[in-house]
């Protein structure tokens, strides 16, 4: 057994040794150890380097609040996690751990030069140090900051673990399974009440695990604990360990992160690494206890300096003596017990140094009886030792005078600045805190949530007080849940309640300007930094926090907030409650991205919608692009073709013969009812009253502000029935907008709206041979110019399938869109594809669709418009029904700005050098004007056009419609391209190709 393991103490099982490595070296711990307790058992205090100064650091705490002992853990490929707290990670055979923030090794670290240059890194150094010379920024400062920034090393491999996401509903959620939480559960127990208790530790018990000397109800604390846990479980209480309540959200929803496998030597099959629980509880008891505060003095961060309560936990829970010759420095009674406990297991406590002039007589007497030197009214002014503390300098204090210092040798320094109620979750509820003068700390005041705080969270110290308060709060919530609650009366012996005083920095005889007295260990913030921030004008605690980064580290200020507040308040000359605390935010402790992501990763990150024809496209070599949530065939390259070649071929063959295109993703809305035509008249700019059954029309949808929102071809299938199509990406938005107007502005209209996007498969045939190809399959209508002219629609049969057939064109060629019930789409596609072989049919994707429509000047809403484009800007004033009394957007179009001259208008552009423009490129009238130039528009669409024989572009240009033939200039990084403004129709302006 190692030198520091104490036989017969602790809850670890020393008969079950566990081997793990730290920085490549093998260590032996015991079943139940954390990495920190096992290293301490081996006499290792040096566990990491600090973030900014790279100072050697050891574990300062024994729980999740640990700021220093951050390690990387590894379990084979992909399973590396940085910044794990060594005080939380349980060891298992084969666990690999590494220290952080060091190069080349933990003991000899180059970055420690920062410590010597600490004057450079004072508060706000980000804003000062790197300001000059300006030319240094790119080459020196930024690379330096980038290399130094961040804690730990991010994993580089994909995480192979699974993470689960669960919901849980309960009547009562108790956070914290210490004495207060246990008593609350006991007091609230009732038939039919679902109670859940969570604790972040590996086992329930809280403080009781560190105080085996106590006797509860006449039994040793641990015996009582085991019986109580068993009894609560038997009564149906669900106790979840290794589960951290990370956040308290609205209406009693709490997030819990359950660590399922991190403590196991081998991973069980089909088990997630972590589970994120979203719990909705009718009532919540927060029994999270209190966190011990460090004392602030020069050198309070050396390995071997730790919280007295942590030392007690290491001894009593893990059976580890943190040193053989410790010194205790404290302003609170609780640390005295740490000294007594250590003395009892053979450590020689060198001194108890208390800042207070008077301490409870029984404590002083016991110390004397144990032979521990006591120094009251003393301060600590320095520590020594490079990688481990070797001595401490203590000075007497009399009033404002600090006397001569005296060195005391030691191998550990246990400190306590008193206790801070853990109010993080309470603060998440927007709960208000109230300052308590006696305890000089903040206590919970009120919250809107159905939540009570029990025990040390309310400033009640000692096991008896926690049990009593827990029981009272438990009955309180039981009553709120309509249950009588249970009487709980528990006697406690050997309890250790205590009191203390709250300190700022300890008094010193040295120059405080040179003191390294740490307040926030993880971010290396010293008392001097906080005072400097105030001197430099920071008045709000929120500014002090951000300027110094105090409390901004991953420990969320668990140790630093109150000390920081006391020091800042002193510097400001204002009482602490007037200065106030910064806001705590979730998560309570660092939480993995995996736990938040849960199942939503990889293919489950987002829905991928696929059409019925998608498998054909995949089998035929389509390259896909995402459009909204849809996956659409982008182009169909043949062997050896790049995108440009494939698109050029698809365009040419479509215009030469016939192309087939999967248009199923088009949004479709069925507008039905006696008032359907009235509704359409009000929603769309176009007139609909006179549109005959069997005819369709291009419809334009505006917002009431007058700007284009969506467009699409709309067919009148019956007197009271419209088949509305929308853009692929706009379908849901248009549906929502229609419902909004129908439900809330015109509830008198008798109209029904149904989203039918996924009910239809839509196949578009375009090209001079489209009618010839399709006609043999159509029953019910003849595909002639007379019987079925352009912009017709009909319910018919196509290849034996019920169909809605539209004669529309988004290419300028003879065009049809065949809608069949969605499941039939693939079959129809195959039939048309086979029949089309005689015409050399070509399958084309969205890119060719874009090129063909741009050649005809047809806009794409959202590409050629951007939410500030009116129909008149887009050259589509013809679609606006000027004689209608009202439609959505009509009044908006009359706003002075929308009718003004010089608006950006959609035009065509042809480059003089025949180069292809870049979409989004900015346009100027005069390229020789001084910089910054006046931008007059931008390129919205740009393609190589096979039909035109040169690249074409669409653009929004100021006053463009009145500038036909003028030359504009597009500035690119390497050159300026001149282009001529043209109309937007590049192919067949007479529409002669639309005729059969």
């Amino acid at each position: 057994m190692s030198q520091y393991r104490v036989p017969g103490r602790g809850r670890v099982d020393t008969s079950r040794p566990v081997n793990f490595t730290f920085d490549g070296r093998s260590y032996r711990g015991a079943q139940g150890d954390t990495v920190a307790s096992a290293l301490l058992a081996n006499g290792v205090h040096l566990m990491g380097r600090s973030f900014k100064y790279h100072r050697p650091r050891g574990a300062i705490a024994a729980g999740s609040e640990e700021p220093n002992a951050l390690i990387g853990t590894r379990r084979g490929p992909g399973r590396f996690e940085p910044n794990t707290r060594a005080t939380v990670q349980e060891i298992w055979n084969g666990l690999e751990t590494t220290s952080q923030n060091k190069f080349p090794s933990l003991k000899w670290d180059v970055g420690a030069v920062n410590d010597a240059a600490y004057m450079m890194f004072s508060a706000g150094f980000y804003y000062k140090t790197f300001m000059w010379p300006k030319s240094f920024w790119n080459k020196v400062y930024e690379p330096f900051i980038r290399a130094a920034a961040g804690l730990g090393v991010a994993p580089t491999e994909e995480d192979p673990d699974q993470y689960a996401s669960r919901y849980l509903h309960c009547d009562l959620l108790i956070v914290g399974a210490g004495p207060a939480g246990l008593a609350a559960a006991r007091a609230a127990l009732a038939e039919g009440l679902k109670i859940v208790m969570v604790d972040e530790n590996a086992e329930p018990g809280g403080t009781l695990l560190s105080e085996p000397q106590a006797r509860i109800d006449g039994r040793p604390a641990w015996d009582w604990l085991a019986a109580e846990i068993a009894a609560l479980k038997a009564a149906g209480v669900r106790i979840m360990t290794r589960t951290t309540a990370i956040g308290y959200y609205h209406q009693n929803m709490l997030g819990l992160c359950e660590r399922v496998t991190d403590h196991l030597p081998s991973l069980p099959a089909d088990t997630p690494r972590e589970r994120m629980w979203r719990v909705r509880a009718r009532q919540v008891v927060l029994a999270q206890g209190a966190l011990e505060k460090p004392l602030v003095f020069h050198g309070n961060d050396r390995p071997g300096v730790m919280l007295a309560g942590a030392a007690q936990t290491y001894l009593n829970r893990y059976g580890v003596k943190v040193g053989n010759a410790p010194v205790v420095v404290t302003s609170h009674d609780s640390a005295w017990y740490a000294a007594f406990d250590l003395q009892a297991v053979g450590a020689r406590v060198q001194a108890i140094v208390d800042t207070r002039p008077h301490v409870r007589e029984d404590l002083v007497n016991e110390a004397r009886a144990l032979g521990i030197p006591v120094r009251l009214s003393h301060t600590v002014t320095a520590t020594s030792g490079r990688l481990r503390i070797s001595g401490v300098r203590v000075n007497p204090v009399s009033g404002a005078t600090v006397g001569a210092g005296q060195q005391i040798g030691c191998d550990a320094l246990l400190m306590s600045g008193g206790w801070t109620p853990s109010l993080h979750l309470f603060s998440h509820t927007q709960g208000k805190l109230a300052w308590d003068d006696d305890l000089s700390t903040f206590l919970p005041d009120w919250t809107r949530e159905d939540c009570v705080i029990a025990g040390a969270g309310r400033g009640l110290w000692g096991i008896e007080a926690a049990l009593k308060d827990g029981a009272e709060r438990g009955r309180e919530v039981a009553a709120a849940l309509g249950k009588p609650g249970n009487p709980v009366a528990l006697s406690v012996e050997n309890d250790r309640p205590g009191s203390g005083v709250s300190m700022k920095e300890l008094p010193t005889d040295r120059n405080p300007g040179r003191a390294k007295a740490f307040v926030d260990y993880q971010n290396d913030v010293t008392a001097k930094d906080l005072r400097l921030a105030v001197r430099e004008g920071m008045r709000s605690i929120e500014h002090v926090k951000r300027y110094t980064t105090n409390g901004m580290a991953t420990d969320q200020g668990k140790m630093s907030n109150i000390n920081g507040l006391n020091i800042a308040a002193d510097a400001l000359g204002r009482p602490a409650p007037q200065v106030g605390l910064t806001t705590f935010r979730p998560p309570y402790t660092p939480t993995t991205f995996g736990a938040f992501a849960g199942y939503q990763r990889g293919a489950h990150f987002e829905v991928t919608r696929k059409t019925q024809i998608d498998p054909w496209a995949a089998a035929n070599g389509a390259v896909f692009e995402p459009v909204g949530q849809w996956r659409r065939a982008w182009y169909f390259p043949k062997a050896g073709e790049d995108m440009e070649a494939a698109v050029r071929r698809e365009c040419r063959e479509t215009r030469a013969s016939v192309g087939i295109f999967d248009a199923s993703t088009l949004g479709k809305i069925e507008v039905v009812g006696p008032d359907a035509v009235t509704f359409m008249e009000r929603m769309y700019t176009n007139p609909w009253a006179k549109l005959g059954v069997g005819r369709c029309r291009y419809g334009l949808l505006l917002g009431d502000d007058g700007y284009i929102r969506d467009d699409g071809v709309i067919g009148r299938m019956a007197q009271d029935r419209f088949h509305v199509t929308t853009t692929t990406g706009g379908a849901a938005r248009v549906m929502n907008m229609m419902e909004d107007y129908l439900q809330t502005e015109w509830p008198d209209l008798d109209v029904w709206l149904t989203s039918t996007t996924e009910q239809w498969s839509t196949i578009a045939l375009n090209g001079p041979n489209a009618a010839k190809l399709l006609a043999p399959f159509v029953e019910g209508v003849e595909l002639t110019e007379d019987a079925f002219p352009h912009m017709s629609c009909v319910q018919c049969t196509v290849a034996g399938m019920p169909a809605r057939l539209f004669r529309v064109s988004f290419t300028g060629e003879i065009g049809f869109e065949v809608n069949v019930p969605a499941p039939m789409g693939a079959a129809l596609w195959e039939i048309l594809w086979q029949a089309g072989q005689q015409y050399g049919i070509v399958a084309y994707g969205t890119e060719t669709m874009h090129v063909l429509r741009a050649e005809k000047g047809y806009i794409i809403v959202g590409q050629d418009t951007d939410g500030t484009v009116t129909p008149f800007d887009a050259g589509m004033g013809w679609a606006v029904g000027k004689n209608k009394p009202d439609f959505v957007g009509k009044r908006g179009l009359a706003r002075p700005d929308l009718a003004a001259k010089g608006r950006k208008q959609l035009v065509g552009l042809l480059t003089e050098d025949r180069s292809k423009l870049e979409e989004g490129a900015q346009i100027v009238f005069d390229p020789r004007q001084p910089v910054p130039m006046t931008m007059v528009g931008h390129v919205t669409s740009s393609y190589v056009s096979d039909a035109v024989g040169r690249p074409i572009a669409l653009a929004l240009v100021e006053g463009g419609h009145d500038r036909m033939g003028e030359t504009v200039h597009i500035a690119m990084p390497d050159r300026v391209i001149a282009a001529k403004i043209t109309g937007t129709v590049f192919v067949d302006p007479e529409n002669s190709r639309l005729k059969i």
Partner: protein
Amino acid sequence: MLLIHCPYCNETLPEAEFTYAGEAHIVRPPDPSALSDDEWEGFLFIRSNVRGPHYERWRHMHGCGRFFNAVRDTVSDRFLTTYPAGQPRPDLASLTAASEPSK
């Protein structure tokens, strides 16, 4: 996550089923063309942006699909009440009295 009571379904359901739809009780004028530019601007753009109880619209998007009105405190994020579209504004005094924070 908020719990929201849908006055049509008469059920209290998680926020994820709902979408926000802007301030409530802003009626589209029956004859927009009769409005001056200032009046139209008021309808189109000007919103109250209150700190405290706010009349607003929600839609039970992934449920019954109905738009309804709510009074929500923008400070505490608490819903004071929800009610069907078309009903008059509920009395604020009686709603806020019932939602005073408890100690």
